């Protein structure tokens, strides 16, 4: 699978020495292109761990299923909240599912003031 960089959202993490996706990718696959935007240097080598998607402060990266094994086009978007992730999944028929998953114990309670959308 491959990360797709949304060029209208990516700002190349200008304040950082390296874009955050480049810093985090376990496969050394994300880098900065000549246009100042992040790019996956070899999409076929991605393991779709989604670390880059989760860390991107602009929400500018999506994981895509290669057409060879999945149809056009589904989406899975994580919103990183405090101690939880809210995932939104849209299938090829437009069905939307949402999942809220606690991912850290501390300071987690059942209040409803979290910062998920």
């Amino acid at each position, binding site marked *: *699978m*491959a990360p797709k960089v949304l060029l209208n959202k990516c700002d190349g993490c200008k304040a950082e*020495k*390296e874009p955050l996706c*480049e*810093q*985090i*990718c*376990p*496969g*050394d696959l994300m*880098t*900065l292109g000549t246009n100042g935007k992040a790019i996956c*240097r070899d*999409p*076929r*080598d*991605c*393991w*779709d*761990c*989604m*670390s880059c998607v989760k860390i991107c402060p602009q929400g500018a990266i999506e*994981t895509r*299923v*290669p*057409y*060879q*094994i*999945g*149809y056009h*086009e*589904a*989406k*899975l978007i*994580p919103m990183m909240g405090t101690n939880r*992730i809210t*995932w939104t*999944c*849209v*299938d*090829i*028929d437009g*069905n939307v*599912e949402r*999942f809220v*998953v*606690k*991912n*850290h*114990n*501390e300071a*987690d309670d059942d209040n409803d003031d979290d910062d998920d959308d």
Partner: protein
Amino acid sequence: MTQSQPNNLDEIQEEHLEADILIIGGGNAGCFAAIEAKKMNSKLKVIIMEKAHIDRSGCLAGGMDAINTYLPKDKTPEDLVRWSRAQAGGLLREDLALEISRCLNEPIEEWERWGLPIKKNDNGDAKYRGQWDISIQGSEMKPILAEKTREMGAEVVNRVVATNLLFDGEKVVGAMGFGVRDGKFYSIKGKATIVATGGAGGLYKPYTNDGNDSHHQIWYCPFDTGTGYAMGIRAGAEMTTFEMRWAAVRTKDFNGPIDTISVCYKTPMVNAKGEKFLAERYAEYGGDKAPRYIRANAPMEEVLAGRGPIYVDTRQMTPEQIKEMKTDYLNERPSFVLHLAANGHDIGKEPIEVYGSDPYIVGGHTASGYWLDENWQTTLPGLFACGDVAGGVPNKFVGGCGAEGLLSARGAVAYIESIGDLNCDLTEQLSAEKARIFSPLFTNEDGVLPRWMEEKMQRIMDEYAGGVHQFYRMNEERLDNALRHIRKMKEQVRFLYAKDLHELMLAHEVIDRLDVAEVLIYHLKYRKETRWPGWQTRMDYPEKNSALDCFVNSKLNRDTGEVEVFTRPYEQIVPGDRYEPNL
């Protein structure tokens, strides 16, 4: 970032560091080793040499939804060893397995205190999803562990690729490598060195990878490329049980885990005729609880017998269960949920097709890896091993690999008490390794791209050494073919050409995989029997041979360059029939 690109060897800068304990690889096992060493003595200088970034490196990059072995309150370490022994076809290091079982829950309990959510039952105890496995919400478990590792004072050197060990005579005194971002040559000395680089993915061609854009659509972490094994192999370390390969039934095309579905939600595996073939044809082996190699091989036998495709039948699941199951996947392999969405797949209406994975060498699941003493030291003095590179104990999984982190650190900390300062002259080793590391940057552009060699190796291994396209089957003549080709490629690594530092990493990854593949073939050739159908299917020796009821070990003879293969006897500690879990 623009990478600094050297034009010749003289332009390459050097970085020389020194530690009390060097840990190569900051995944699950390596982080626990670092934390344990600092706990034992906070003054120790512990350095982790990490190929990627410690926050998301190793098998836990995407997370995990279960801890597959966690000792229940009413079970003993001996019970776990009995189960694990039977699951592995009767072969494991009982001494090491018992030690691991005794401290198995420690790392997980710590992890929970640091923030990892573990699902609980009404009593507040960990909720078991099967006999030994508990459910967790581990999508962020690696960042949690990495944060603790830093907090304990371990120094992390990210983006440095380890390539070879450093020696003072016979003793291991650190490792060398290169910075994949800064382009520097690195040496890190350590009074003791712990190797924790993970197993070897990408030795075989996956069926998901027929010239398409999903080269890394594999179950195991594709960035674990057998480097830890290869460094030891090249130095003459003794390796064990490589022939016990790990392959498993995975979700078809995605190549992802199925325990989440089949164990957690008790969904049966069925063939195209709707038969529950494990219960019907493999009852004598335990049906749905049969040893893992049986469960890996049985679906492939069904396909060969004309009863495919094979499914995990999810159609009885309630909408609530389906939602919970998808949530589990989001904690481990989130893109499986995306994969279902991309196929418009409603698993309440259609079952999930499954198929065999490509084979891996991974000591956390099977027994492949370094041969260890009771202190987790390898046969190279000063070198300790933990996690997927450590051999002898199958079914360790996440908890067992973490426990081995603790045990290897305890061994290393005790060892360095007898070691003084390191004053050896390493000049020759450093200059030779520096030249070897960077040579692909300076070879002829008309050379061989790492990708070409990797793909050739994967195809050769698949066709001749029992890959998934061959239904894991092999014979002596095909293995000889595989060996001939692997050796030829090893001769040709001098033609590898890398245009940048990323490709230089890929070049060393294929060099390492070739060393692992060669040793694997020797092991497969030696075991002239079929002990674990699926994991190791010899068409020319289809039965078990009682003379081979022992460990098959190997060692590179550095004088002749030949891999020597020999056996070590089985030592039983826990009484009982080794093939029956007796539970």
